[in-house]
């Protein structure tokens, strides 16, 4: 009809709004169907588009949105094992399982992700030191390959594809369903404490002290607080309560950013002020909060990525081995400050040593730092390249799910298993990210 305008192209972007991709969305609504094909183009599964950079994009090629693969298949409430299609959204799954006394054993910081996306990015959460990454709880899944083969993958069955698909960025085929082993909970509430700290040493001390007795730990840091690379921040830790209360007493008004804000809005002074405010409102205290409020505070502001304007932003998350952590993190924060670039939300967290089955899995023992920066073009990119060098020197790596710019060389150093992984990549599948990091 005449009064339609086209919005399809803009619908499938990544969370950082950067880079932009032109891709054809193929219709796929039934997991028993064969994969849709387009002549000569590669395909890539697309979930909720919550990865920040280009792992969910397939520029000049095709994507398969998985939103219609949203059926549950089985839920064994005795064993706590749930089997569902890959497009099921975590928020729906949680609404279903929490009142029944279960929780997802590893959760990212948003519930607006698909289960397939959680597998493909092998997501981690505030309990990495205790549980490892999400891949450790994926007991089985089905992979639909472009040659039409359907393969059930478990740690014992098709183990190579199992290991490649966990953290495999959607490149090994379409995950049609996933079976996950859930965690038992005795309450939908978290007993949480927040503790202010003044220096990085303080952070390391509190982190070490908390690891044993707290299931969830994470720290926010004020990246603007000190020019010498030191920083103040707030340490959050939490444990599941056991009070048998599974009712979520609603909730604040839903907020949202209706449209792209002008990109100058989040300038250095505003960011600085925000960080100051955030520090001052978070005093030392203990609280009882619902799981949703503890894990997903940013979900309350829908489309918060529009705050950064149409140029979007870069998120940078790296992990640094223990012995190098303090020095490297200091140098990175110092570089931020000297470049007059600051981060809206900066997060610091200790990873444990539980290995993921995933070949390209990001988390490993050490400390992870996540920063985000408004996209100021070359200036921002140069700084992030400098970050990469520091992380390389320290023997760390950078998280592909949040990346839009790391070089092919850096990727290959960060992920030495890439060659083994590329053997398992489905030849009909590709992504903007993959072409970028495989470029000669």
């Amino acid at each position: 009809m005449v009064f339609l305008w086209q919005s399809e192209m803009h619908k499938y972007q990544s969370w950082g709004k950067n880079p932009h991709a032109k891709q054809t969305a193929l219709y796929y609504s039934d997991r028993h169907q064969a994969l849709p094909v387009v002549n000569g183009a590669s395909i890539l599964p697309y979930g909720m588009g919550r990865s920040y950079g280009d792992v969910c994009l397939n520029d000049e090629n095709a994507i398969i949105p998985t939103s219609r693969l949203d059926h549950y298949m089985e839920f064994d409430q005795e064993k706590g094992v749930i089997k569902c299609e890959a497009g099921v959204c975590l928020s729906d799954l949680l609404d279903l399982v929490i009142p029944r006394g279960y929780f997802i054993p590893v959760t990212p910081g948003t519930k607006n992700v698909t289960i397939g996306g959680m597998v493909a990015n092998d997501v981690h959460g505030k309990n990495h030191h205790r549980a490892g990454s999400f891949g450790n709880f994926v007991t089985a899944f089905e992979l639909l390959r472009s040659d039409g083969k359907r393969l059930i993958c478990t740690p014992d069955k098709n183990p190579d594809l199992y290991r490649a698909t966990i953290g495999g960025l959607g490149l090994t085929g379409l995950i049609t369903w996933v079976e996950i082993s859930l965690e038992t909970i005795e309450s939908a509430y978290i007993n949480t404490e927040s503790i202010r700290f003044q220096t990085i040493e303080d952070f390391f001390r509190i982190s070490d002290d908390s690891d044993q007795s707290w299931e969830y730990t994470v720290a926010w840091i004020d990246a603007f607080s000190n020019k010498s690379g030191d920083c103040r921040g707030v340490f959050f830790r939490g444990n599941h309560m056991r009070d048998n209360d599974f009712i979520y007493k609603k909730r604040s008004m839903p907020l949202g950013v209706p449209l792209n804000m002008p990109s100058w809005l989040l300038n250095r002074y505003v960011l600085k002020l925000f960080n100051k405010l955030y520090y001052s409102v978070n005093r030392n205290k203990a609280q009882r909060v619902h799981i949703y409020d503890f894990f997903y505070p940013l979900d309350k502001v829908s489309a918060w990525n529009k705050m950064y304007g149409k140029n979007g932003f870069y998120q940078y998350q790296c992990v640094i081995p223990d012995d190098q952590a303090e020095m490297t993190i200091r140098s990175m924060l110092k570089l931020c400050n000297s470049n007059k670039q600051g981060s809206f939300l900066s997060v610091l967290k200790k990873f444990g040593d539980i290995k993921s089955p995933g070949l390209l899995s990001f988390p490993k023992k050490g400390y992870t730092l996540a920063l985000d920066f408004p996209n100021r073009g070359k200036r921002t990119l140069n700084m992030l390249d400098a970050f990469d060098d520091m992380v390389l020197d320290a023997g760390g790596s950078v998280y592909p799910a949040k990346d839009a710019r790391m070089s092919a060389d850096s990727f290959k150093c960060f992920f030495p298993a890439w060659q083994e992984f590329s053997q398992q990549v489905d030849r009909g599948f590709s992504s903007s990210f993959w072409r970028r990091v495989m470029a000669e």
Partner: protein
Amino acid sequence: MATKKTLLILGATSAIAQQVARQVVSRDYRIILVGRDRQKLVDLCADLQVRGGTADYRVHDLLEMTAHEQIIKNVVNEYGGFDIVLLAYGTLPDQEQCEADRNEAVKQLNINFISAQNILSVIAERFIEQGQGQIIAISSVAGDRGRKSNYIYGAAKGALSIYLQGLRNRLSAHNVQVLTVKPGFVDTPMTKDFKKGILWSTPERVAKDIVRAMDKRRDVIYTPWFWKYIMLIIKFIPETIFKKLNL
């Protein structure tokens, strides 16, 4: 009469029907899914059961109209009757193909209107007998005015809307609700080849509107709501002008 309310969904694999079933899954309904594709029905049943619902399915091709009476009889025998019926099946024909092949046009009219009115007539008798019931049928805004781009579909849906109007008139004395649902553009497998724009809605949103209208015992709804006004304008255009428009 069963203690639980029973919802019978005809064309249960349709995207809108699936969402309606999910919307009411937390209610204490027994949901019976009728469709042609056994595998899909099995999947949908499993999905509703995991969500905490009670669901069962029956495989039938509703184009076989001679079987309609038996289908309804079986449902009554097996489940002790039913209270709500959602008629959700339909196909969106290719207008040009209908013009080129009159058999195709007849087939489309059979699916979208003849078979629908046939099974609803069987159900109407049942509801009159039990003195209560709710009939919800998915028609379309396309049935409000004929346009060259899809008037076979429009004719079938228009006929369905008129049929439902008459049925409502007849059944209102018997405590039976008849709800005509007129969705606009909905992003479903039926419309997968269309370019989508701002007027497009999702099956979830349409399903929400349907359930709300069902509970309020409404007669006719447009969904999303703004289609009421779009169609109002379209219906107002004089035919002398309308016939020259490229719609």
